[in-house]
């Protein structure tokens, strides 16, 4: 994709997205698109800014809205809705993640939008989807972990269900949203046909736990939390190491690996016990097995355990906290973290996108927009509105 000057045109150049999203799932979906070269125009209003702008000193907003443009329109005003319709006319896609029927009340549901822009691709991200008896129910990542079945499979053995941390559901809904939108935009390039995409966060999560679901549809068995364990192999767990809250994850998958594992541990007496002589027995006696293995790891450094076991071909690695990832040698060598100076924020550390690809960017250097930062670009340059009109609408708080 390099042109003669050596500049790379990103794969989504020439795609424009009218972005009505807020919080995390939507903004993260359009963040992927912006990084890959799409022009993402965030439509917000000072009346109701993206709440993420204020949360935790605005740091989550910094992470999820880089390189986007922002225009401000007070959509409770009919004049503002008229302008937004003009913006949609010159966009390739619309993305939104409002609860319930907000877009419909604004006259911006898919049906209405196709009247002004027949080939638009529109993506709605919601908790439970836009059809069905619970379509208007309120959802957050944590409650969708529960709804999807994921929480029922996460937790310590015999314990209550556990929600994954870090807004995991927002993350996967953003990925599925961006993927489905790119598939639809590709189809549009080839056929000229637009599309409405109704994406459900809970269904995204459910589609990623097929082992549990298929066990029920095939065998009517309801799976329960297994901690760090696996249903087929043992040992498979997370063990305490030397130091405060230091742990190592280890998975031994074959008899050959078990023998190597014993050798790395120095062939302790207990490991020759008949109770651990086959995978089946190790699974049955797992509580005791895990205790004995922890007796070995507890005096060792987690990285030492990883090195020794990986050298023997056994999957192992330290359980790392976010701040430990900063110094992880693997991530460091692959340039996963990028330090950048953000105006007003000082030096910040960002994670790039999780891919390395010759012709597809994985980081965006310009910071998130201030509210309305691109008003004159969007209203003046893109929509051809006269300066006086923009001034009047700003004074009237239509542009607001």
């Amino acid at each position, binding site marked *: 994709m390099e042109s003669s000057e050596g500049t790379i*045109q990103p*794969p989504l*150049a020439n795609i424009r997205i009218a972005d009505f999203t807020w919080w995390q799932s939507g903004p993260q979906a359009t963040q992927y698109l912006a990084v890959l070269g799409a022009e993402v125009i965030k439509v917000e209003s000072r009346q109701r800014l993206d709440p993420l702008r204020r949360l935790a000193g605005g*740091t*989550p907003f910094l992470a999820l809205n880089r390189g986007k443009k922002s225009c401000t329109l007070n959509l409770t005003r009919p004049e503002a809705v008229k302008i937004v319709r003009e913006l949609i006319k010159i966009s390739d896609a619309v993305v939104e993640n409002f609860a319930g029927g907000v877009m419909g009340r604004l006259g911006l549901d898919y049906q209405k939008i196709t009247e002004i822009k027949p080939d638009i691709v529109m993506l709605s991200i919601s908790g439970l989807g836009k*059809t069905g008896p*619970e379509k208007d129910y309120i959802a*957050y990542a*944590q409650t969708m*972990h529960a709804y999807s*079945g994921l*929480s*029922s499979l996460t937790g310590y053995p015999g314990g209550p*269900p556990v*929600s994954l*941390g*870090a*807004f995991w559901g927002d993350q996967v809904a953003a990925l599925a949203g*961006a*993927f*489905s939108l*790119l*598939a639809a935009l*590709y*189809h549009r*390039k080839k056929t000229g046909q637009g599309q*409405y995409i*109704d994406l*459900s966060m809970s*269904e995204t999560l*459910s589609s990623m736990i*097929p082992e*549990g679901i*298929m*066990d029920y*549809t*095939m*065998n009517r068995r*309801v799976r329960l939390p297994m901690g760090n364990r696996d249903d087929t192999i043992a040992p*498979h767990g997370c063990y*305490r190491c030397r130091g405060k809250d230091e742990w190592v994850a280890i998975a031994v998958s074959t008899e050959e690996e078990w023998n190597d594992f014993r050798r790395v541990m120095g062939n302790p007496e207990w490991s020759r016990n008949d109770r651990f002589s086959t995978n089946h027995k190790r699974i049955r006696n797992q509580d005791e097995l895990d205790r004995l293995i922890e007796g070995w790891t507890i005096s060792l450094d987690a990285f030492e355990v990883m090195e020794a076991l*990986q050298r023997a*071909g056994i*999957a192992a*690695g330290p*359980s*790392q906290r976010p701040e430990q990832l900063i110094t992880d040698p693997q*991530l460091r*060598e*692959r340039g*996963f973290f990028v330090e950048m100076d953000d105006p007003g924020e*000082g030096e910040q*550390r960002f*994670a790039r*996108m*999780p*891919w*390395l690809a010759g*012709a*597809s960017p994985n980081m965006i250097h310009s910071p998130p927009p201030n509210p309305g930062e691109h008003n004159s670009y969007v209203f003046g340059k893109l929509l051809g509105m006269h300066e006086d009109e923009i001034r009047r609408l700003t004074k009237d708080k239509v542009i607001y």
Partner: protein
Amino acid sequence: MGKGILSGLRIVECADLITGPFCTKLMADLGAEVIKIEEPTVGDKARRMPPFLEDVSHPDRSGLFLYLNTNKLGITLNLENVTAKVIFQQLVEQADILVENTSPHRMEGLGLGYDVLKTVNPRLIMTSITSFGQTGPYKNHKPCDLVSFHMGGMASVTPDWVADPDREPPLKGGGRQADFTTGLTAALITMAAMHGQYSTGLGQHIDVSEQEVVASALARVFVLQSSGAMGRKRGDGPNMERPLPCKDGYIEFHCVESHHWKALMKVMDHPEWGDSELFQDYYARCRNWKTLEPLLAQWTRKRTRDEIYHAMQAERVAFSPVNTTKDLLESAQLLVRGFFVAISHPEAGELDYPGTPYRFSGAPSSPDVPSPLLGQHNEKILCSRLAYTRQEVEEMKRDGII
């Protein structure tokens, strides 16, 4: 197949287990043609992973494999063999995308690395998926969902807090979250590269690392910490509510703003302790969770999940039942949306499969063709697509090439 929005797209899959097959399944279920290459006799390792229908271990009875390979064509190729390599290159020549999840540089070792394949087909997008990426000191480390989830940092924030950090280890997500999310991420970047191919006619090589995919979920945390906030310790808590026990399971909730709390107190018929300073805001409620939990649980235990769920949602507060896999199959919401799809397979019979998480207004977007038997489409692909004769195919079978 053939009706979805990605019909016309041609993909070759040289992958097993979850990451690669899930990536191509996402595209196959939208109508792309996926030719899955498996090792003769052995097949995809997922064929030997549970759950099995009626717990009978059989290569066409693994629920995991059946799910991951819907809408695909299956052939067998022993890529160590010279003839097989020629066939592989012929398939790649006709393809838009190659997805592989072999260990780093195995494809190069076979003489089938990107540098070779791009001369065969400059339009090719080659997506390579591994645990740690194609480069770096850990590139040859043994892959495993458990280790990726922990090394990527997600286990340290799951659960959000623990009472006893010495005895409750960082926790893996249920199932194989790291693997599935990596497949999804690979599908996203591969689809983006197709847009590049559309405008320039050129492909590219994409390197996806599972550890990085997991770490990406912490994007917010990294920025927060670089602005000076201290990392939270797992034992610093409680910092959040936990699901509450009901008559018939657990209920999860998001009760942060004061109007959420007021609505809950209203639905609970205004208990006296509701006005206590101990619970005056979210932070206070978290701090005093040990006092609050039994008070709430006393009430929730007497009610079903659905009673509480619908009553709280009527007040516009995010409550949700903690659904088990059984509950999903019985959910009215999922039923009306047609999330589950019945697919009939020659060995496994008719079963309900989870469908896709999106509905497209103008095209089908659900799996409808069962996963291939091992080598099921050998003749179809080799004879009709590549013009080998039946006799040649028989010879290849005999020689263990296919």
